């Protein structure tokens, strides 16, 4: 069982690295789903089967799907990958990597500064979680539902695009596609494959 933990931890880390470094949004999303599934397995090995199921169903199944729908709605077009490559210059990574490395170093320093403690051997049943939810954390449940209601209403209103804006953006997308096809290739990154 320990092996499963370390293996799925490795998969999660690799998949997350790939998420952060892809140029295609779809690919990144799929890698993210892989990462989430690996994390679900980690949950299971830690004795939280209920949460593992929820991770798969809600996080990977609903939130990521929402991401996919949004990307499709955006209708970015084929030039988005070149755009991403242009944006992802190597110099832009130096600062974030350093900062994140510092933070990781500090976190690891704090964590391993104590004697190792072993997790408990028993899984925690969904019944216990449910009892906790509807016992001491009842207010949290109610607040979470109000939050979701607010998000629903907000997303509906915020997502409404005025007619003129939508048509203008559609035109702009078509224009972009036409100009990119007719532009000489010297200005952009050389493509790996012919169009």
């Amino acid at each position: 069982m320990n092996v499963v933990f370390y293996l799925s931890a490795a998969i999660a880390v690799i998949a997350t690295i790939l998420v952060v470094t892809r140029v295609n949004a779809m690919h990144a999303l799929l890698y993210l789903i892989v990462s989430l599934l690996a994390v679900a397995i980690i949950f299971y090995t830690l004795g939280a089967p209920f949460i593992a199921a929820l991770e798969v169903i809600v996080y990977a199944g609903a939130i990521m799907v929402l991401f996919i729908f949004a990307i499709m709605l955006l209708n970015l077009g084929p030039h988005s990958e070149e755009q991403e490559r242009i944006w992802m210059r190597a110099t832009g990574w130096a600062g974030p990597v350093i900062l994140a490395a510092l933070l990781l170093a500090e976190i690891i320093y704090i964590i391993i500064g104590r004697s190792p403690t072993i997790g408990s051997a028993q899984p925690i049943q969904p019944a216990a979680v449910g009892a906790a939810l509807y016992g001491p954390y009842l207010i949290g449940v109610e607040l979470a539902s109000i939050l979701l209601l607010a998000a629903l209403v907000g997303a509906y209103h915020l997502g409404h695009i005025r007619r003129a804006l939508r048509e203008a953006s559609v035109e702009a997308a078509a224009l972009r596609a036409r100009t990119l096809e007719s532009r000489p290739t010297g200005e952009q990154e050389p493509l790996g494959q012919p169009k």
Partner: protein
Amino acid sequence: MLNLLWLVPVIPFASFLVLALFGRRFSRTLSAWIGVVSIGLSAALAVLVAVSFLTSPPAGNAFTQVLWTWISVGSFTPQIAFRLDALSLIMMLVVTFVSFLIHLYSAEYMEDEENYALFFAYMNLFVGSMLTLVLSDNLLLLYLGWEGVGLCSYLLIGFWYKDPKNGYAARKAFVVTRVGDTAMAVGLFLIFTQLGTLNIQDALTKAVQVWPVGSGMAVAAAALLLGGAVGKSAQLPLQTWLPDAMAGPTPVSALIHAATMVTAGVYLIARTHTIFALAPAVQLAVAIIGALTLLLAGFSALTQSDIKRVLAYSTISQIGYMFLALGVGAWSAAIFHFMTHAFFKALLFLGAGAIIITLHHEQNMFRMGGLRRQLPLVFWTFLIGAASLSALPLVTAGFFSKDLILYDAFASTSGSPWLWAAGITGALLTAVYTFRMVFLTFYGDARQQVTHQPGWRVNIPLVILAALSIIGGYIELPETLGNLPVFSNFTASILPAPSLARGGIGVLLPLQIVAALAALGGIYLAYLFFLRRPQLARSLSHARLGAALHRFWFSGWGFDWLYDHLLVYPYIWLARVDRTDVFDYIYQGLAALTRALWRGLSRTQAGMLRWYAAGVAVGAIVIIALVVVLL
């Protein structure tokens, strides 16, 4: 009658106020009347007070009139009080009388000038301050008068303010005397803290009790007072201001820079002579300063071409004699010389002024000549004054006073033959340069014609002063000539006679003969070089050494050059370096720092999401690091 003493200084002050406030509306005649009559009243009152004092002397030979208490802070209670004793009586009489004559003279001299009323206002303020100085019974009031006369000197030297040179001369006078004034102020502080009082008589009695002879405090106090005296009386090393002060109108030079203000230093030392007696080293310094100054100024006077500058250097030299007398303990002789000097020096200045104004403000002696026939009255009075200055034997007042000083310089216990030798050389020099002045101005060919004859307001003061220059000396006849020391007897209550180490008629007679020979010899030398064979003088002054000496003495022994390079130029350089006010950089720096910080901070507001996220990350790192490090 003695109670009228307070009016003597107050009347000039009142007249100053009237003329300063309303003078612009008065006619010239009225301003002159107010100015002259106020001093005349003051002089008359002074005579009345003097007569009363002499006929029925008050107890202790001193009369004090307290007007009110000026300041009252703890034990510091100086009063506005006037003290009349032998010394201040003489000073008061001389000051008021000579001032009156000079005021009368300047009514005509300044007739064509603008700011006529203001001139008399300043002159009256001066006389009031000078009288306060000599009559005050405590050092603080004396210092008030001291500063007052310094102020009036500045105002009057720069009276013709439209010419910047006059303003420069006035400033120079003020700044140089200020150096002395500061020393004197410190001396006053010392006296007050050590002796507990500024009342002169109390301070002097206390000093004798508290300070042993030669003690550090006495030396310090005496030296500081000497500093003040040196500044005001234009002695070494602060003598550079007096020749330039001749930029002022001639009556100013006569009154302030010949007869009265420059003798304030002499008065101060005479008044506080007890302290000087307690510090023999400083007293010796007084004598040496006097001797050096009289020689130095004598040589300089020999080379001048401006008639007023000759008289200025002559004043410096004669005050050197007074300092010499003070330095050897002959206090009374110094005051006696002050009196005769006031008469003949004022006479000489007024005469020079008459010449200047009738020759349309010509002051260069080499452009005058032959005025003997054109201005006969001026010539004769000037001649009498010159004779008195040169100490022509027996007939002039100057002879008696200068001779007394020379005798005391030789004979006194604090004196020495060297000091006497300096004095004799100075007497020779005095005769030479004085009669050089006379011969150049009045004899020879007339190079210019006088425009008009002076009026009665000029002539009468000249005649009166000439008479005094002759008979003024007869109140102190030495032992060889009648033995009638009326003057020293009168002042003996305040100014003790010097103790003589090498005295007696056997010494006095030869010294008198030598002095007489020096005076006559000097007159003959002047006659030889400047009247009979002027080419001798010319060839001397054109020779290499002669020309160099001439230049050196002409510039007053290079003191102006020295002070310029030592003090003035470094100060100007410093001011130029600090032109932008170095300390301002601190405040500008603060503002600049704030601006730099602002610019730096405003760059963090880039408006970019990733930048802000990075800020959050950095903040998290820093805080966790703090937790890790500190816990």
